Protein backbone atom coordinates (compact mmCIF):
# COMPACT_ATOMS: atom_id res chain seq x y z
CA UNK A 1 0.00 0.00 0.00
CA UNK A 2 1.23 3.46 -0.89
CA UNK A 3 2.06 5.29 2.33
CA UNK A 4 1.51 8.91 3.26
CA UNK A 5 4.81 10.78 3.33
CA UNK A 6 6.47 12.89 6.01
CA UNK A 7 8.78 15.48 4.49
CA UNK A 8 11.11 17.76 6.41
CA UNK A 9 11.77 21.00 4.55
CA UNK A 10 15.07 22.79 4.72
CA UNK A 11 14.91 26.48 3.84
CA UNK A 12 18.40 27.35 2.65
CA UNK A 13 19.98 30.78 2.79
CA UNK A 14 23.65 31.19 1.89
CA UNK A 15 24.24 27.48 2.40
CA UNK A 16 22.65 27.29 5.90
CA UNK A 17 19.24 26.04 7.03
CA UNK A 18 17.02 28.86 8.25
CA UNK A 19 13.41 29.13 9.38
CA UNK A 20 11.10 32.09 9.78
CA UNK A 21 7.52 32.77 10.76
CA UNK A 22 5.05 33.68 7.99
CA UNK A 23 8.02 33.99 5.62
CA UNK A 24 9.87 36.54 7.80
CA UNK A 25 12.23 36.69 10.79
CA UNK A 26 14.77 34.05 9.79
CA UNK A 27 16.53 31.98 12.40
CA UNK A 28 19.56 29.70 11.85
CA UNK A 29 18.76 25.99 12.06
CA UNK A 30 22.03 24.35 11.09
CA UNK A 31 24.11 22.64 8.43
CA UNK A 32 21.83 21.29 5.67
CA UNK A 33 23.94 18.25 4.85
CA UNK A 34 24.07 17.12 8.48
CA UNK A 35 20.35 17.76 8.95
CA UNK A 36 19.52 15.86 5.76
CA UNK A 37 21.52 12.82 6.87
CA UNK A 38 19.90 12.90 10.30
CA UNK A 39 16.38 13.08 8.87
CA UNK A 40 17.03 10.19 6.48
CA UNK A 41 18.24 8.08 9.39
CA UNK A 42 15.18 9.01 11.47
CA UNK A 43 12.83 7.80 8.73
CA UNK A 44 11.96 10.90 6.69
CA UNK A 45 10.30 9.77 3.46
CA UNK A 46 11.72 12.59 1.35
CA UNK A 47 13.38 15.95 1.81
CA UNK A 48 12.69 19.32 0.27
CA UNK A 49 15.31 22.04 -0.07
CA UNK A 50 14.09 25.53 -0.80
CA UNK A 51 16.75 28.06 -1.65
CA UNK A 52 15.14 31.23 -0.40
CA UNK A 53 17.85 33.58 -1.60
CA UNK A 54 18.25 32.09 -5.03
CA UNK A 55 19.90 34.73 -7.16
CA UNK A 56 22.29 34.22 -10.03
CA UNK A 57 25.46 34.60 -7.99
CA UNK A 58 24.15 32.19 -5.31
CA UNK A 59 23.34 29.51 -7.89
CA UNK A 60 26.77 27.87 -7.73
CA UNK A 61 26.57 27.59 -3.95
CA UNK A 62 23.23 25.83 -4.28
CA UNK A 63 24.51 23.41 -6.92
CA UNK A 64 27.42 22.46 -4.65
CA UNK A 65 25.07 21.95 -1.75
CA UNK A 66 22.76 19.77 -3.86
CA UNK A 67 25.76 17.65 -4.82
CA UNK A 68 26.91 17.30 -1.21
CA UNK A 69 23.43 16.31 -0.09
CA UNK A 70 22.91 13.85 -2.96
CA UNK A 71 26.21 12.16 -2.17
CA UNK A 72 24.97 11.33 1.36
CA UNK A 73 21.26 10.81 0.88
CA UNK A 74 19.53 7.51 0.05
CA UNK A 75 16.00 8.97 -0.04
CA UNK A 76 14.51 11.29 -2.68
CA UNK A 77 14.88 15.02 -2.50
CA UNK A 78 13.34 18.02 -4.20
CA UNK A 79 15.12 21.30 -4.78
CA UNK A 80 13.36 24.61 -5.33
CA UNK A 81 14.07 28.32 -5.35
CA UNK A 82 14.72 30.63 -8.27
CA UNK A 83 14.30 27.98 -10.97
CA UNK A 84 13.14 29.52 -14.23
CA UNK A 85 14.71 27.70 -17.17
CA UNK A 86 15.28 24.25 -18.61
CA UNK A 87 19.00 24.79 -17.97
CA UNK A 88 18.38 25.47 -14.24
CA UNK A 89 16.50 22.18 -13.97
CA UNK A 90 19.10 20.26 -15.92
CA UNK A 91 21.90 21.55 -13.67
CA UNK A 92 20.06 20.46 -10.50
CA UNK A 93 19.14 17.01 -11.84
CA UNK A 94 22.68 16.45 -13.09
CA UNK A 95 23.98 17.17 -9.60
CA UNK A 96 21.69 14.67 -7.92
CA UNK A 97 18.34 16.36 -7.26
CA UNK A 98 15.43 13.96 -7.86
CA UNK A 99 12.73 16.55 -8.37
CA UNK A 100 12.67 20.30 -8.79
CA UNK A 101 10.01 22.67 -7.62
CA UNK A 102 9.09 25.79 -9.53
CA UNK A 103 7.04 28.65 -8.20
CA UNK A 104 7.22 32.29 -9.37
CA UNK A 105 8.56 31.41 -12.82
CA UNK A 106 5.57 29.13 -13.45
CA UNK A 107 3.13 31.91 -12.60
CA UNK A 108 5.07 34.36 -14.70
CA UNK A 109 5.02 31.99 -17.68
CA UNK A 110 2.79 28.94 -17.14
CA UNK A 111 4.04 27.25 -20.36
CA UNK A 112 7.26 26.57 -18.45
CA UNK A 113 5.44 23.72 -16.68
CA UNK A 114 4.54 22.10 -20.02
CA UNK A 115 8.09 22.52 -21.31
CA UNK A 116 9.72 21.04 -18.23
CA UNK A 117 7.27 18.15 -18.03
CA UNK A 118 7.89 17.31 -21.68
CA UNK A 119 11.65 17.53 -21.33
CA UNK A 120 12.15 15.80 -17.98
CA UNK A 121 8.87 13.98 -17.34
CA UNK A 122 6.10 15.05 -14.97
CA UNK A 123 7.48 12.86 -12.19
CA UNK A 124 10.26 15.33 -11.40
CA UNK A 125 8.35 18.58 -11.85
CA UNK A 126 6.80 19.89 -8.65
CA UNK A 127 4.82 23.12 -8.73
CA UNK A 128 5.08 25.00 -5.45
CA UNK A 129 2.16 27.31 -4.73
CA UNK A 130 2.13 29.81 -1.86
CA UNK A 131 -1.39 30.85 -0.91
CA UNK A 132 -2.75 33.40 1.53
CA UNK A 133 -6.33 33.60 2.74
CA UNK A 134 -7.58 37.11 2.09
CA UNK A 135 -10.81 38.16 3.82
CA UNK A 136 -12.47 39.42 0.62
CA UNK A 137 -11.11 37.14 -2.08
CA UNK A 138 -10.37 33.83 -0.36
CA UNK A 139 -7.21 31.86 -1.07
CA UNK A 140 -4.93 33.66 -3.53
CA UNK A 141 -1.53 32.77 -4.91
CA UNK A 142 1.54 34.82 -4.00
CA UNK A 143 4.95 34.83 -5.69
CA UNK A 144 8.47 36.16 -5.13
CA UNK A 145 8.82 34.53 -1.71
CA UNK A 146 5.34 35.62 -0.70
CA UNK A 147 5.74 39.32 -1.42
CA UNK A 148 3.57 39.66 -4.51
CA UNK A 149 -0.14 38.89 -4.77
CA UNK A 150 -0.91 37.47 -8.22
CA UNK A 151 -4.63 37.68 -7.38
CA UNK A 152 -5.03 34.22 -8.86
CA UNK A 153 -7.39 31.83 -7.16
CA UNK A 154 -5.38 29.10 -5.44
CA UNK A 155 -7.52 26.13 -6.47
CA UNK A 156 -7.79 27.32 -10.08
CA UNK A 157 -4.02 27.78 -10.34
CA UNK A 158 -3.30 24.35 -8.84
CA UNK A 159 -5.68 22.76 -11.33
CA UNK A 160 -3.97 24.56 -14.21
CA UNK A 161 -0.52 23.48 -12.99
CA UNK A 162 -1.69 19.85 -12.85
CA UNK A 163 -3.27 20.09 -16.32
CA UNK A 164 -0.04 21.49 -17.71
CA UNK A 165 1.93 18.48 -16.50
CA UNK A 166 3.09 19.10 -12.94
CA UNK A 167 3.72 15.77 -11.20
CA UNK A 168 3.07 17.05 -7.69
CA UNK A 169 1.88 20.17 -5.89
CA UNK A 170 3.66 21.62 -2.90
CA UNK A 171 0.95 23.73 -1.38
CA UNK A 172 1.97 26.18 1.32
CA UNK A 173 -0.48 28.23 3.30
CA UNK A 174 1.31 31.48 4.10
CA UNK A 175 -1.49 32.26 6.53
CA UNK A 176 -0.57 29.18 8.58
CA UNK A 177 3.20 29.08 7.95
CA UNK A 178 5.21 29.15 11.16
CA UNK A 179 2.13 29.54 13.37
CA UNK A 180 2.11 25.90 14.59
CA UNK A 181 -1.69 26.10 14.69
CA UNK A 182 -2.18 23.38 12.10
CA UNK A 183 -2.32 23.05 8.31
CA UNK A 184 -4.88 24.92 6.20
CA UNK A 185 -7.33 22.03 5.97
CA UNK A 186 -9.90 23.84 3.81
CA UNK A 187 -7.34 24.92 1.22
CA UNK A 188 -5.54 21.56 1.17
CA UNK A 189 -8.80 19.63 0.92
CA UNK A 190 -10.11 21.84 -1.89
CA UNK A 191 -6.91 21.41 -3.91
CA UNK A 192 -6.65 17.66 -3.26
CA UNK A 193 -10.22 17.26 -4.52
CA UNK A 194 -9.57 19.42 -7.59
CA UNK A 195 -6.50 17.64 -8.96
CA UNK A 196 -5.48 14.04 -9.59
CA UNK A 197 -1.78 14.44 -8.72
CA UNK A 198 -0.27 14.17 -5.21
CA UNK A 199 -0.58 17.20 -2.93
CA UNK A 200 2.04 17.99 -0.30
CA UNK A 201 0.55 20.12 2.47
CA UNK A 202 2.81 22.71 4.03
CA UNK A 203 2.58 25.49 6.59
CA UNK A 204 1.34 25.39 10.15
CA UNK A 205 2.38 22.00 11.54
CA UNK A 206 2.91 22.21 15.28
CA UNK A 207 1.53 19.02 16.79
CA UNK A 208 1.08 15.38 15.79
CA UNK A 209 -2.72 15.84 15.47
CA UNK A 210 -2.15 18.38 12.72
CA UNK A 211 -0.71 15.64 10.53
CA UNK A 212 -3.57 13.28 11.39
CA UNK A 213 -6.05 15.98 10.28
CA UNK A 214 -4.28 16.87 7.08
CA UNK A 215 -4.14 13.22 6.00
CA UNK A 216 -7.59 12.13 7.20
CA UNK A 217 -9.68 15.28 6.70
CA UNK A 218 -7.90 17.12 3.90
CA UNK A 219 -6.66 13.96 2.10
CA UNK A 220 -3.15 15.31 1.58
CA UNK A 221 -0.62 12.78 0.27
CA UNK A 222 2.30 14.17 2.19
CA UNK A 223 2.85 16.55 5.08
CA UNK A 224 5.77 18.92 5.07
CA UNK A 225 7.20 20.79 8.04
CA UNK A 226 10.40 22.56 9.01
CA UNK A 227 10.86 24.07 12.44
CA UNK A 228 9.16 21.33 14.47
CA UNK A 229 11.73 18.92 13.08
CA UNK A 230 14.75 21.25 13.06
CA UNK A 231 14.30 22.23 16.68
CA UNK A 232 13.48 18.68 17.79
CA UNK A 233 9.92 19.43 18.94
CA UNK A 234 8.55 16.33 17.23
CA UNK A 235 10.71 13.36 16.27
CA UNK A 236 10.05 11.94 12.82
CA UNK A 237 9.92 8.35 14.02
CA UNK A 238 7.65 9.26 16.92
CA UNK A 239 5.36 11.13 14.52
CA UNK A 240 5.21 8.23 12.05
CA UNK A 241 4.53 5.67 14.78
CA UNK A 242 1.63 7.78 16.09
CA UNK A 243 0.14 8.20 12.63
CA UNK A 244 0.48 4.48 11.91
CA UNK A 245 -1.36 3.75 15.16
CA UNK A 246 -4.15 6.07 13.95
CA UNK A 247 -4.53 3.90 10.86
CA UNK A 248 -2.61 6.15 8.46
CA UNK A 249 -0.26 4.02 6.31
CA UNK A 250 3.37 4.86 7.06
CA UNK A 251 6.76 3.42 6.12
CA UNK A 252 8.31 2.36 9.39
Amino acid sequence: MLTKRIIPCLDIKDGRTVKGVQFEGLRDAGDPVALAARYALEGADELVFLDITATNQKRTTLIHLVRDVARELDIPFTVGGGISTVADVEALLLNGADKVSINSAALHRPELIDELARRFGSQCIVVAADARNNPENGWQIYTRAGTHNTERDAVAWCREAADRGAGELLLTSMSNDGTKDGFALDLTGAVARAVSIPVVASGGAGRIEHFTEVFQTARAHAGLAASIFHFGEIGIRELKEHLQAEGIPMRL
Partner: protein
Amino acid sequence: MDIAVVDYKGGNVQSVLFALERLGVQAMLTADPEVIQRADKVLFPGEGEAASAMRELRAQGLDQVLPTLTQPFLGICLGMQLLGTHSEENDATMLGILPFEVKRFPTVPDYQVPHMGWNNLRRPRSPLFAGLREADFVYFVHSYYAPVGDYTIAEAEYPAPFSAAVQHRNFYAVQFHTEKSGPVGTRILENFLNL
Protein backbone atom coordinates in the same frame (compact mmCIF):
# COMPACT_ATOMS: atom_id res chain seq x y z
CA MET B 1 35.03 -4.96 -11.32
CA ASP B 2 34.09 -2.56 -14.14
CA ILE B 3 30.62 -1.08 -13.74
CA ALA B 4 29.17 0.95 -16.61
CA VAL B 5 26.27 3.32 -16.10
CA VAL B 6 24.63 4.06 -19.43
CA ASP B 7 24.54 7.78 -20.15
CA TYR B 8 21.69 8.78 -22.42
CA LYS B 9 20.76 12.09 -20.80
CA GLY B 10 18.02 10.25 -18.97
CA GLY B 11 17.63 12.28 -15.82
CA ASN B 12 19.00 11.45 -12.42
CA VAL B 13 22.04 9.32 -13.29
CA GLN B 14 24.00 11.17 -10.64
CA SER B 15 21.86 9.63 -7.89
CA VAL B 16 22.79 6.18 -9.16
CA LEU B 17 26.50 7.06 -9.31
CA PHE B 18 26.36 8.37 -5.74
CA ALA B 19 24.54 5.25 -4.52
CA LEU B 20 27.26 3.09 -6.08
CA GLU B 21 29.91 5.37 -4.54
CA ARG B 22 28.35 4.78 -1.10
CA LEU B 23 28.90 1.06 -1.76
CA GLY B 24 32.55 1.76 -2.56
CA VAL B 25 32.12 1.35 -6.32
CA GLN B 26 33.49 3.90 -8.78
CA ALA B 27 31.32 3.40 -11.88
CA MET B 28 31.91 4.75 -15.39
CA LEU B 29 29.21 6.98 -16.82
CA THR B 30 29.40 6.28 -20.52
CA ALA B 31 27.55 6.14 -23.83
CA ASP B 32 30.46 4.38 -25.56
CA PRO B 33 29.20 1.01 -26.90
CA GLU B 34 32.65 -0.57 -26.52
CA VAL B 35 33.03 0.44 -22.88
CA ILE B 36 29.51 -0.81 -22.17
CA GLN B 37 30.16 -4.14 -23.93
CA ARG B 38 33.39 -4.69 -21.97
CA ALA B 39 31.95 -3.83 -18.53
CA ASP B 40 31.34 -6.58 -15.96
CA LYS B 41 27.98 -5.11 -15.07
CA VAL B 42 25.77 -2.50 -16.71
CA LEU B 43 23.31 -0.17 -15.00
CA PHE B 44 20.66 1.55 -17.06
CA PRO B 45 19.00 4.24 -14.96
CA GLY B 46 16.34 6.47 -16.29
CA GLU B 47 13.91 9.16 -15.60
CA GLY B 48 12.09 11.25 -18.07
CA GLU B 49 10.05 10.68 -21.15
CA ALA B 50 10.12 7.44 -23.16
CA ALA B 51 10.16 8.76 -26.73
CA SER B 52 13.03 11.25 -26.13
CA ALA B 53 14.99 8.59 -24.27
CA MET B 54 14.62 6.20 -27.23
CA ARG B 55 15.67 8.96 -29.65
CA GLU B 56 18.82 9.52 -27.61
CA LEU B 57 19.59 5.78 -27.49
CA ARG B 58 19.17 5.50 -31.27
CA ALA B 59 21.36 8.55 -31.86
CA GLN B 60 24.15 6.81 -29.97
CA GLY B 61 23.53 3.41 -31.56
CA LEU B 62 22.75 1.97 -28.13
CA ASP B 63 19.39 0.59 -29.24
CA GLN B 64 21.37 -2.01 -31.22
CA VAL B 65 24.03 -2.67 -28.57
CA LEU B 66 22.01 -3.04 -25.37
CA PRO B 67 19.90 -6.06 -26.49
CA THR B 68 23.12 -7.99 -27.31
CA LEU B 69 24.67 -7.63 -23.85
CA THR B 70 25.29 -10.81 -21.87
CA GLN B 71 26.63 -9.49 -18.55
CA PRO B 72 24.28 -8.72 -15.60
CA PHE B 73 22.23 -5.66 -16.53
CA LEU B 74 20.01 -3.58 -14.24
CA GLY B 75 17.41 -1.19 -15.61
CA ILE B 76 15.92 1.34 -13.19
CA CYS B 77 12.55 3.10 -13.56
CA LEU B 78 12.38 4.37 -17.16
CA GLY B 79 15.37 2.06 -17.69
CA MET B 80 13.00 -0.81 -16.96
CA GLN B 81 10.19 0.46 -19.17
CA LEU B 82 12.56 0.90 -22.12
CA LEU B 83 13.20 -2.86 -22.08
CA GLY B 84 9.61 -3.47 -23.20
CA THR B 85 8.27 -3.41 -26.75
CA HIS B 86 6.14 -0.29 -26.72
CA SER B 87 4.98 2.52 -24.43
CA GLU B 88 1.77 4.49 -24.40
CA GLU B 89 3.91 7.48 -23.44
CA ASN B 90 4.00 9.39 -26.75
CA ASP B 91 3.54 6.08 -28.61
CA ALA B 92 7.21 5.10 -28.25
CA THR B 93 8.74 1.98 -29.76
CA MET B 94 11.11 0.53 -27.19
CA LEU B 95 14.07 -1.87 -27.11
CA GLY B 96 11.96 -5.04 -27.18
CA ILE B 97 14.18 -7.08 -24.87
CA LEU B 98 11.14 -8.08 -22.81
CA PRO B 99 7.67 -8.75 -24.21
CA PHE B 100 5.65 -6.20 -22.18
CA GLU B 101 3.79 -3.11 -23.32
CA VAL B 102 4.04 -0.11 -21.02
CA LYS B 103 0.69 1.44 -20.12
CA ARG B 104 -0.47 4.55 -18.34
CA PHE B 105 -2.07 4.09 -14.91
CA PRO B 106 -5.85 4.43 -15.31
CA THR B 107 -7.65 7.20 -13.48
CA VAL B 108 -9.08 5.64 -10.33
CA PRO B 109 -10.53 7.75 -7.48
CA ASP B 110 -7.98 8.20 -4.67
CA TYR B 111 -5.13 6.83 -6.81
CA GLN B 112 -3.21 9.82 -8.08
CA VAL B 113 -0.97 9.63 -11.12
CA PRO B 114 2.03 9.67 -10.90
CA HIS B 115 2.25 6.81 -8.43
CA MET B 116 4.63 8.65 -6.17
CA GLY B 117 6.01 7.48 -2.85
CA TRP B 118 6.83 4.39 -0.81
CA ASN B 119 5.00 1.18 -1.59
CA ASN B 120 5.49 -2.49 -0.64
CA LEU B 121 7.25 -5.08 -2.75
CA ARG B 122 5.01 -8.14 -3.07
CA ARG B 123 6.39 -11.66 -3.54
CA PRO B 124 9.98 -10.66 -4.32
CA ARG B 125 11.40 -13.79 -5.94
CA SER B 126 14.92 -13.36 -7.25
CA PRO B 127 18.50 -13.33 -5.96
CA LEU B 128 18.19 -9.56 -6.52
CA PHE B 129 16.02 -9.43 -3.41
CA ALA B 130 18.12 -11.64 -1.11
CA GLY B 131 17.81 -10.51 2.51
CA LEU B 132 14.57 -8.55 1.97
CA ARG B 133 11.36 -9.19 3.84
CA GLU B 134 7.95 -9.56 2.21
CA ALA B 135 6.34 -6.10 2.02
CA ASP B 136 9.53 -4.08 2.44
CA PHE B 137 9.08 -0.51 1.19
CA VAL B 138 10.75 0.97 -1.89
CA TYR B 139 10.34 4.36 -3.56
CA PHE B 140 8.33 4.70 -6.78
CA VAL B 141 7.77 7.71 -9.06
CA HIS B 142 6.06 6.85 -12.34
CA SER B 143 2.92 7.37 -14.39
CA TYR B 144 3.38 4.34 -16.64
CA TYR B 145 3.77 0.70 -15.68
CA ALA B 146 4.57 -2.77 -17.03
CA PRO B 147 1.83 -5.36 -16.49
CA VAL B 148 2.49 -8.56 -14.56
CA GLY B 149 3.78 -11.47 -16.71
CA ASP B 150 6.09 -14.49 -16.71
CA TYR B 151 9.02 -12.08 -16.52
CA THR B 152 7.79 -10.48 -13.24
CA ILE B 153 10.05 -11.10 -10.21
CA ALA B 154 8.22 -8.77 -7.77
CA GLU B 155 4.90 -6.99 -7.82
CA ALA B 156 3.47 -3.85 -6.27
CA GLU B 157 -0.15 -2.72 -6.12
CA TYR B 158 -1.67 0.59 -7.23
CA PRO B 159 -4.46 -0.41 -6.86
CA ALA B 160 -4.06 -3.38 -9.24
CA PRO B 161 -0.83 -5.42 -9.26
CA PHE B 162 1.88 -4.35 -11.72
CA SER B 163 5.51 -5.37 -12.29
CA ALA B 164 7.76 -3.80 -9.67
CA ALA B 165 10.68 -5.81 -11.06
CA VAL B 166 11.27 -8.01 -14.10
CA GLN B 167 13.94 -10.36 -15.39
CA HIS B 168 14.81 -12.06 -18.65
CA ARG B 169 18.17 -13.88 -18.82
CA ASN B 170 20.85 -11.35 -17.74
CA PHE B 171 18.43 -8.44 -17.95
CA TYR B 172 17.10 -7.40 -14.55
CA ALA B 173 15.05 -4.27 -14.04
CA VAL B 174 13.16 -2.50 -11.29
CA GLN B 175 10.40 0.08 -11.62
CA PHE B 176 11.27 1.73 -8.31
CA HIS B 177 14.31 3.85 -7.56
CA THR B 178 16.61 1.41 -5.86
CA GLU B 179 19.17 4.23 -5.42
CA LYS B 180 16.60 6.23 -3.43
CA SER B 181 14.95 3.47 -1.41
CA GLY B 182 16.93 3.76 1.81
CA PRO B 183 18.70 0.69 3.24
CA VAL B 184 16.33 -1.68 1.34
CA GLY B 185 17.37 -0.12 -1.97
CA THR B 186 21.02 -0.24 -1.02
CA ARG B 187 20.71 -3.96 -0.33
CA ILE B 188 19.16 -4.54 -3.78
CA LEU B 189 22.03 -2.68 -5.46
CA GLU B 190 24.50 -4.70 -3.43
CA ASN B 191 22.75 -7.91 -4.48
CA PHE B 192 22.99 -6.85 -8.11
CA LEU B 193 26.72 -6.18 -7.76
CA ASN B 194 27.08 -9.69 -6.31
CA LEU B 195 25.18 -11.46 -9.12
